[in-house]
């Protein structure tokens, strides 16, 4: 596990004429090979700025970024592309291109002017296709793939570029739930098996916690917090991502939850059942107050209020409109 990319006391932003607009300051981070790292933070916090700096497109005002032995801005363009590859959220897709050709494009920095792949290049392409399980689609045209497959093909392309670092900017933002999981687990595998340092910018906290080896949390005005997802949950630092007055991260459920106000009810029963019933009550913004004891019972599921029994939450709501109102 080597540090491939490090940031020390970084201060980043944009220059317009004489004006310097600092967007991020005092950033410190380490990206390790063999690990999947997820960068989380609200919109506008400067995630893209950080990514731009890592890609060598902007020069830090202060501090330093080091990719292996030098700063990304100091690499010649072609050298940098052999160290670092990217996947963006919405790629421009040439529909006529096949998956194989797309992955072959990843070899661009290694090719001569004509763009003809050598045996070695082809080996890398095959390996990238195998690693992303896209083998069976290699002759398929990009226009005929699903969004998820297309994004996997883009990941294969980034992989065939054979850099130490892969940066993905919201790669799953327009994919469905299953594909989001699949892609993130795929990235986890690639990081582990191929010893790549993978940085994913994402908004998907659930999946990030599920898959990432490291989390980087960014929030306005506070320093970047890095750590194991589980550590961040246990020491409650993960709450830094959330507006504290309204939301909190429930470590038991591994989910973001609304802060509960005082409720006008009391429910007894096993914890899981109470959780879901309360959730349903809160969703209704239920105004009902009751002094009666509500009990949830298992096997089969039922709700007991006084001597009345309901067999589903829906039934309980229906009845309670009239009787409990």
């Amino acid at each position, binding site marked *: 596990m080597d540090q491939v990319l490090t940031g020390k006391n970084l201060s980043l932003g944009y220059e317009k004429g004489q004006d310097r607009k600092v967007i991020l300051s005092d950033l410190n981070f380490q990206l390790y090979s063999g690990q999947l790292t997820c960068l989380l933070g609200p919109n506008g916090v400067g995630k893209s700025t950080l990514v731009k700096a890592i890609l060598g497109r902007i020069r830090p005002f202060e501090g330093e970024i080091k990719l292996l032995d030098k700063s990304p801005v100091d690499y010649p363009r*072609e050298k940098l592309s052999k160290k670092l590859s990217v996947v963006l959220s919405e790629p421009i*897709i040439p529909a006529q291109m096949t998956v194989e*050709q797309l992955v072959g*494009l990843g070899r661009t*920095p290694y090719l001569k002017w004509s763009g003809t792949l050598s045996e070695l290049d082809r080996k890398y392409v095959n390996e990238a296709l195998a690693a992303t399980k896209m083998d069976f689609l290699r002759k398929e045209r990009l226009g005929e793939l699903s969004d998820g497959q297309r994004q996997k093909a883009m990941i294969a392309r980034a992989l065939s570029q054979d850099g130490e670092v892969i940066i993905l900017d919201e790669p799953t933002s327009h994919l469905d739930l299953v594909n989001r999981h699949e892609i993130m687990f795929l990235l986890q595998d690639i990081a582990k098996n191929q010893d790549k340092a993978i940085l994913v910018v994402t908004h998907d906290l659930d999946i990030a916690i599920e898959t990432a080896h490291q989390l980087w949390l960014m929030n306005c005005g506070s320093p970047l917090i890095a750590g194991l997802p589980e550590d961040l949950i246990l020491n409650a630092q993960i709450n830094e991502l959330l507006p504290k007055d309204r939301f909190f991260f429930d470590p038991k459920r591994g989910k973001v939850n609304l802060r509960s106000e005082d409720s006008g009810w009391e429910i007894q029963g096993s914890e899981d059942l109470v959780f879901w019933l309360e959730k349903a009550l809160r969703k209704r913004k239920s105004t009902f107050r009751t002094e009666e004891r509500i009990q949830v019972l298992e096997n089969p599921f039922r709700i007991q209020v006084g001597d009345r029994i309901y067999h589903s939450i829906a039934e309980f709501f229906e009845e309670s409109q009239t009787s409990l109102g």
Partner: protein
Amino acid sequence: MICIFIVNSMKTNQNAFFFILAAVALVFLFLINLALGSVSIPVDTILSGLFTGEWEKSSHREIILNYRFPKSLVAVMAGIALSLSGLQMQTFFRNPLAGPYVLGISSGGGFGVAILLLAGSFLGFSGMVISSWATAIAGILGAVSVLALVSLVAWRVRDSMTLLIVGIMFGAAVSAIISVLAFFSEAEALKLYTIWSMGSLGGLGWNQVGLLGLLLAIGAFPLLLATRSFNALLLGETYAESMGINPVRLRWLVIISTGILAGSITAFCGPIAFVGIAVPHLARLVWKSADHRILFPGSALLGAGLLLLCDTIGQLPGSAQTLPINAVTSLVGAPVVIALVLKRNFSKEF
């Protein structure tokens, strides 16, 4: 039967098959183009004349060697040049409607020639003594300067629709200046310019054909060196940059190459519409590929063939007069572009 056999055996290498087919069609069209005209000359007479150097009639020799052969060559070269510039513009601007015409390069070329022919009398040289060399240089300068202006804007906007509008605006502005020049110029000069603007593949001597060939080679050479970059650019500038491509260098390469290719053709032959836009799309349809290693030669072959075909159609009426090439290409090219636009998902399949 033979056809079916060829198709089957080539299924593994369809690309090569289409290349051979296109090349055969090109040779065929070339010979037809040589044979047809106000006087039709049998193909075998032409072939024996060309290979042995002995002609039955000296008039045939005269027609073929000094008129039709250079004209057919010019058609081939113009087809290649316009298609290549159209293809690189479409990839570079990632816009399926880009081409030398839309972005004002051809109007730029026209502007250069107009200044030379129309404003010549103001500037102190008569329209009659201007050599074709001067026309070519004026055309290239005009084309490159308009393209440079457009790409200067492209530099700032980066949005292809805006760029398209800017290109059309430049074209309109340049046309307006040409109109003003035309209004004040003399009848002789005006006629020269009007004829030039209708486009013509013929009337060039071997010297000019040679120069055109040289310019074509100079303009197309950078494309050979940048095939890799064009392929990477298919994914957009950010991806291309992440793969080590220098977009600034590529931008200038496109500007210079398109300026020379489209500019010189416009200068020598006048504006020739639609070939630049339509042929790259045809090539994409035929080869079903986005790879520039296939699309560059493919577009060149199809472009040469299409222009030969258009030229042949233009002289079919049988009289000594030929239709202006610009009108014929528009008549053939417009339906192609319309059909493509009406096709579903056109912009995504680009």
